[in-house]
């Protein structure tokens, strides 16, 4: 499994095209993140529209990316969240943590 990435201007985008609920998916996110991060991009946007489920493992991976960027004065953003993924972020009170890239 791999997630497509792209860099447009000063923002890097990671398109999550499957559920973030397994180690395989978590490692795919980490690999995509490292790919964008290694290009020097410090504003990274997660597009979670292709995911229907995110579990605690996936949330942990997202927060690990958030912490890494924060330590470098960077920012992890999200495209507007939808559906069950949005419900999960709200339940865990993380929906206001990540700025939204509209």
């Amino acid at each position, binding site marked *: 499994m791999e997630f497509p990435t792209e860099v447009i201007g000063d923002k890097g985008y990671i398109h999550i095209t499957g559920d973030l609920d397994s180690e395989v998916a978590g490692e795919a996110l980490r690999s995509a993140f490292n790919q964008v991060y290694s290009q020097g991009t410090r504003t990274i946007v997660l597009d979670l529209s292709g995911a229907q489920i995110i*579990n605690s493992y996936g949330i942990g991976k997202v927060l690990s990316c958030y912490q890494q960027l924060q330590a470098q004065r960077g920012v992890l953003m999200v495209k507007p969240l939808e559906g069950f993924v949005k419900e999960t972020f709200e339940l865990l009170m993380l929906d206001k943590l990540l700025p939204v890239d509209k």
Partner: protein
Amino acid sequence: MTSAQPSILVADSDERRQGALRALCQAKGWGCQVVSDASEFQQLVEAGTFDLVIADVEMPGLDYKVLLGHACRRKPSQLLVVVGDAKGSETSLRMVRSNDTDLIARPVDLDWVERCMEQATLSKRQETREQLAHSFVVSERTEMRFSCKQLGEAQAITLPIVARLVASRRLSDNDARKIRLAVQEALLNAFEHGNLELDSRWKEERLGETDRFSAVRKERLADPKFANRMVSVTSWFDGEVVEIVVKDQGGGFSPTRLREIKKNDLSCFGRGLTLMTNAVDEVRFSSGGTEVTLVKRLAATRST
């Protein structure tokens, strides 16, 4: 176009291919909708009413990420075929590798499309038969067992019982997602904290390039004492309630209070139990914490 008539959605700006595919559909009694506008394609494909979707990945304006997203969400019976160049562009190859999608090279071989149509017809018939059969099931019980080694290599586990309840429209897609989430959390607990005896707090202890949790996890998956321990998942449906029991062979744990969820908490662990208890109607721990039962009542039987 009636719902009984199989139908195809073609996203292609090449008029010759459009005409050839239209003629083939007419000859085979299929409904055919051709679009050359990417936004119209996106609306139609998301509606998910087509049995077969053929999309030229190079069509102007067609965002391949839309195709990737659709490939992840489509019904199992719906076929998605991507038209690419002979060698396969990086984009189209990536789609095929990651999403169980067929790739057809230009020029499009109509015999090949015809075989895809036959396959889609068979899938649709099978789905209809299964829907009907499963709507009559009064009770069902299945048991699956996995070793830690297998779980370490597996992607998410889907329970057949849940898939069948969705197919027979007795369980909504949203409730199925909630069950799947709860099961994933229970499996993770059974596998990592039960059988591998890992401590979540190790996730935040860095050890060079990795963390202590990942390092010990890897060690224990290579140690037969831990790797051969089993996790069993027993699913039971009695017509009104789905019960799923996840059991491990670890030392057990004490399910104390749920961790309090705090706003903007950056910890990378400790949310599994919260997600599990919110996803189903009831969570019960037993056998010294080596067994967890997840209970989900079907919407029609849930008391209000």
